[in-house]
């Protein structure tokens, strides 16, 4: 199986036939299921064994969304504190985040606030975040109710999903929603700097030089 996924990854990563490339980072406490979540999404596989991620890893998946082929480079980070310097270094390059906690683990939920602060510190200002309560298949061991999750997400201004990598619940939806909101941010960002919108009232400029279409101004 390992070789099969690798071929897949190799092909995916060398494929140039796509429209955009988005970089997504998955963060959260150790053992909340970040890697499993990613494996479920990218390879549709699940292993119950826990193997701690060393530093960082990533997978590539190309999806078709809104008539566009979007290549996702999804970074999986180690939750353990000792890798923090490496993982935070990757916040800056990520367009969107999946902040994950484990619904059977109170501590991982309590840490969400801290993770959110980390994002604010190390990432760009419009970073899009989805809060995900993983392992929702383990209803018997649940300690964090869905409502508490939802409340916290509203408080932080994130969107919220409860998901299960094991039973493949809401995994695809989470990523697709994140892609959609990054797309929205992208249009906003472009329209803000786009003279077609902001410069509409200026009227035609009669300049001899072709106006440089490159708009470096921060308007």
């Amino acid at each position, binding site marked *: 199986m390992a070789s099969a996924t*690798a071929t897949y990854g*190799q092909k995916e990563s060398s494929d140039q036939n796509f429209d955009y490339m988005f970089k997504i980072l998955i963060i959260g406490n150790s053992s909340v299921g970040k890697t499993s979540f990613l494996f479920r999404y990218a390879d549709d596989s699940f292993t119950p064994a826990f193997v701690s991620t060393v530093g960082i890893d990533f997978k590539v998946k190309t999806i078709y969304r809104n008539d566009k082929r979007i290549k996702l480079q999804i970074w999986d980070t180690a939750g353990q504190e000792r890798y923090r310097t490496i993982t935070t270094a990757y916040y*800056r390059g990520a367009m969107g985040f999946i902040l994950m906690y484990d619904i059977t683990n109170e501590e991982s939920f309590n840490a969400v606030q801290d993770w959110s602060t980390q994002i604010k510190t190390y990432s*760009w200002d419009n970073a899009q975040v989805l809060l995900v309560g993983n392992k929702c298949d383990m209803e018997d061991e649940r300690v964090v109710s869905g409502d508490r999750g939802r409340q916290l997400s509203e408080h932080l201004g994130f969107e919220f999903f409860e998901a299960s990598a094991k039973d493949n619940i809401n995994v695809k939806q989470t990523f697709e929603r994140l892609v959609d909101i990054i797309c929205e941010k*992208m249009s906003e960002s472009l329209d803000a700097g786009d003279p*077609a919108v902001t410069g509409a009232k200026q009227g035609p400029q009669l*300049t001899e030089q072709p*106006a440089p*279409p490159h708009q470096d101004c921060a308007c």
Partner: protein
Amino acid sequence: MDLNLLQALERERVLEVLRRDKQLRIIEEDRIRRMKYELQELRRRGAKSYSRQYGERTCARCQRPLGKFWNSGAVCRGCSHRICSRCRVGVGTADWKCTVCHAYREVKIRSGEWFLEEKARKFPVTTDKYETVGEKLLKTCNVLSHISVVPPTPPPHLDHQFLSRSGDLKNTKPFTKSVEDLMVSFTSHIKKISTSQNDVRGDLLKVDNGRKGSRFIYSTQKSLSDTDISKASHLFKVPSLPNLFKKNKDSDQEGSSTGAEEETSFSSEYSGGKRGSNSSISTEYGFFDIVSIAGELELALAYNTRTSCLEITVGGCRNLAYGDAKKRKCHPYVKLYVLPEKSGKMKTAVKRNTTDPVYNELLKYQIERHLLFGKRLQASVWHSGTLRRKVFLGEILIPLDGWRFENEASQCFNWYPLCPKAESPDGGAMEQDRGELPVKRSSISQGELLRLSSLKCLQEKEMHLTVCQIR
């Protein structure tokens, strides 16, 4: 931040990920490069050139005249140019853009440039905005590993100061004062080393020095292949020295690296390694036509740890552009190099009259595994035309350090879309190549000093000069 805090095994794991990331990034950069090139082309076609009158009454994109009342065009909100109705993208009377503004926006989206700009607001860009954390980490680790692993193996260089680049034209004056001498320099330039491997071998072994005597000029000329003769006569026609230099400069990119190839093949001579052919010099010197790039190339890469060989299987190509568009002919072959040194030149056979050639040739390049770090495989497709005219049909660059050779699955065939030539791939690396290889002596004779002015006295000893750059 560095990786030194981690244990060796962990560091290896992380580095492996970083390399994979780098591979991905190189592919992505390549995509962006092509995208920007296309945008540039679009812009160039539309641009009002300075030589032309700037008329208010022409479309800024297609240059078609615009009427005063009928088909008068409208001003694009993006670039404030007057645009005819045909060069607009988008719907409605207000919500349109000219083709260039539209394409610019597209590129900004597709290249992720928008994100880089957004990011730069919070984190001002200090160095290279494309440089990522991974890149930095890799660099630091790269430096470390290079120090520890790669033994410095200086090639048999000739005194650099004596003949290095621009300033040396003065030094070479006696050398280039007559046409004949010029020919000498250029035949040696072209031929570089002796006609065949055996000559060099014999020389190195000093088997029979006398037998080969007195043939510096003549024998090299005699044994020129057709290519070289045509090339040489071509050079003869060049009227003046400055032009000659200019010509050489134009073919800089290709030409300068030939020396690199030579260097590597030469030094591998000592270690008994394989030596690349020298016959296709015209392609090296950049006298080639460029056609539109199309199609894909199929390759499989593997590393044979037993023989320490990088094994590249060239499967074939499909949907190539015609090398000779007029006659709709194509005789393609594939050429491989290992960058940045441009070493290990390998070629497949020429397949005639096809744009979907099948080669299935296994080409081997001997290199220690750890030396693959930082290397890239350049695979270019060429049309072998009449009179040895070479036409560039496209190339691909594959990073070798991120390649997961252990993985059997990654050794399967893969199709790669062909790209145009990188304008100056790794500009810096290129410069480096040039700087390192001004002139060198390829065979070692008994202790005589090498001076170019004393060339004629050296007929008894085999003397081979490689002039890589004349400027």
